[in-house]
């Protein structure tokens, strides 16, 4: 029978797991500490991440290293304009069985892995992009009328390049909303660049150890959902979501002026769940207002659709979120 004495042990174990993954990734990836933390949070929350950054910042390397540090299966899909949905989900192949009869056999696509890297996701056509929708939301794919369950834990890490927009297909809002976090990769600093040079030009790149298995990740997922959150904190998260909408409360002037559509209810789910994970990894027994504020930019930035005026004036979703966070009181 469980007792409350297990709770601090759980929190310590979750934190140790995170620290272990972070330490292992640090052997291959330079910097990006915050990015790694949020990717790990998304992993233990059962979410997917959209990584955005200019080429060469180590997006793919980071995802590959994460998969290597976790004892999980990994597959990479390079999205191109001619990529077809079946190339992702898999297809029925005509084969012969043991008796020599012709049968259709389902050949699993690269989506059937724990960690899926959807590299340059915006280069594929919307039709192909939408092949990920069901997988990301339902953790299953349907081919030829037959559903196939994906492995658990399942996480899609998609990357996209904010420049070189020619020949790309911006992700539809419905798909963007399915990403738990949208994480931005910052350009490395002077010291980090020096370390990158050392790390990538050394004779033998370090082999990463597998420090975390699927079972532990699933346990941590379960623990995350048990973290208590006060009604006042949930109300604060809800008010943040509403404040991103124009004509909802009129509190934030920037949202009123520049936002076409605000964050969806999935944004609230993401806020609360990510805050719970952050509290757990911080070995705190409950969600605080700070947890909500810390995850708000990553949870909300891709869920805010700016209007024409916002685009014209160069307003970013990050600014809207920052304004909203600054303007909404904790208790009202």
């Amino acid at each position, binding site marked *: 029978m469980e007792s409350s004495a297990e709770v601090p042990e759980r929190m310590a174990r979750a934190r140790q797991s995170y620290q272990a993954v972070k330490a292992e990734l640090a052997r291959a990836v330079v910097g990006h500490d915050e990015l790694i933390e949020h990717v790990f949070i998304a992993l233990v929350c059962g979410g997917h991440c959209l990584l955005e950054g200019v080429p060469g910042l180590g997006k793919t390397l980071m995802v590959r290293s994460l998969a290597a540090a976790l004892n999980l299966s990994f597959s990479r899909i390079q999205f191109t304009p001619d990529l077809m949905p079946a190339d992702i989900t898999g297809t029925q192949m005509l084969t012969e069985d043991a008796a020599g009869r012709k049968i259709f056999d389902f050949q699993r696509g690269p989506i059937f892995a724990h960690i899926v890297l959807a590299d340059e996701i915006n280069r594929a056509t919307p039709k192909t992009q939408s092949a990920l929708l069901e997988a990301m939301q339902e953790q299953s794919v349907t081919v030829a009328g037959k559903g196939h369950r994906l492995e658990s834990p399942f996480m899609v890490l998609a990357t996209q390049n904010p420049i070189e927009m020619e020949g790309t297909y911006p992700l539809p809002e419905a798909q963007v909303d399915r990403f738990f976090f949208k994480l931005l990769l910052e350009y490395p600093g002077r010291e980090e660049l020096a370390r990158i040079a050392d790390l990538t030009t050394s004779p033998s790149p370090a082999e990463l150890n597998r420090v975390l298995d699927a079972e532990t990740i699933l346990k941590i997922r379960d623990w995350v959902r048990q973290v*208590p959150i006060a009604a006042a*904190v949930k109300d604060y998260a809800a008010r943040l979501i509403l404040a991103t909408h124009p004509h909802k409360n009129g509190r934030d002037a920037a949202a009123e002026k520049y936002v076409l559509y605000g964050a969806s209810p999935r944004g609230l789910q993401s806020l609360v769940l990510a805050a719970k994970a952050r509290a757990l990894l911080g070995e705190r*027994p409950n*969600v605080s*207002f700070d947890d909500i504020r810390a995850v708000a930019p990553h949870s909300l930035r891709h869920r805010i659709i700016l209007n024409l005026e916002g685009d014209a004036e160069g307003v970013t979703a990050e600014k809207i979120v920052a304004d909203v966070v600054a303007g909404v009181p904790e208790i009202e």
Partner: protein
Amino acid sequence: MSEDAAVLRKKFSELIAWERAKRTEKILLEALAYAFLAALLLLPLRGIFSRVNPFSYPAAAFALAAAVIFYFRRWRQIDSLKAVAALDCALRLDARAVTAAEVVEKPQITIAEHYLLRDAAERIEGVQVGALFKREWSWPALAAPGLIALWLALLWLGVGGASPTRNPASPAEKLKQFAQELEEKSEAQRLTESLKLARALKALAQERIGRKTSEEQFAQGVAAMEMRLDAPAPAAQGDFDLGAYTREELAALRAELDAAKRVRAPAGMREREFLDRLQSLPRLGEAMKRAGGMTENMGPGDVQKLLDQLDREATDELDQRTRADAQQFLSMLMPGREGGDVPAQARIPGRGAPDRAEDDQKSDGKGELPGDQPGKQGERGQPPVANAGAAGRVTGQLGAGGSSGMTWRSEAKAGESKIPEQEAPASYRRQMEEDLAAEKIPPALKETVKQYFSSLGTDENKRR
């Protein structure tokens, strides 16, 4: 309920009770400050609401302000939540208190929540909420003592109107006071007509004070009384021309008459001898001297008739003056009427220090010296404007032909005289001598003016 939950409940209750008490104190102090601020602002209007006790202004404003503030800042559920959140902030508990406050109310809790309660109880148990959340004094609370002190000081200084003790009475009360004094004086001096008048005035005032008549009816009654008094009185001119006498002189004359009537002529004393003895009395002698030939060739019983006539004339003169006083008083009694209001220190002539014929002053007039330009036909000299107060009388110049006089009433200046009584006539005489030397006085009048000012003070000395 677990032990941790009980500890937390107790602490949260303690915290909320403390915060509520602080808010109540704050609201009361703010209401007090606003009340006295309002009282200060209303202080200049105190004269308008003179019947209202000035202490009732801040009391009423306090009650109103407290009610309004208590209503708009009443304790709500969210205030309890904010108090607990403040505890989180103060102790850096990362919303543990807020979450625990919610969890302690749940009937069933998970192990994570149980751990949260234990963790929160350990952190909160030793907290002294009174020490952690000390009172914070807002500016109204800080300003309240100063505002109260300022208000009391201004009230004490009488800003905005008379002090409560000097609060002017209503017209009816003033009239009653006047009538009572008049009644007492009339009774003492046995002035029958004045006594009737005093009682009529008192009844008029009493009806208004007893709310038997309205303010309007009272005003009408006063006006009717004033008109009655304004009607021409029967001619009081007798053989003894008592118009030049002051009240005190008339009173002294009546006292001498009373004494003379009581004494009568002793047996064996002739009428002439008795008459001579009466003439030796100062006022009576003077009156008889004015009567001239009336005292000559008096037979038996004539002296008594003479004394009765003199007594009657003196009484009539006093009654007439009382009537004039009452008329003057009534003309100024009702606010908004010509003549203004009755000063609070108005007194019945003959009572109190201000009532001296010698104190009469010209407050307005064409000039104090004879003019140096010829007058125009039809132009009449106007008496000085009468204000209020005691009646005085200035006689015209005695000489060939008839004499004329005019009577006016003027206001005795409030306060004490700064010049001793003995010095005033001397001062007048000096001024007179300077004016005579400067030839401001027409030569024909020089002697008269000189005699008049020389006589000032001598009568007073004689009286003493």
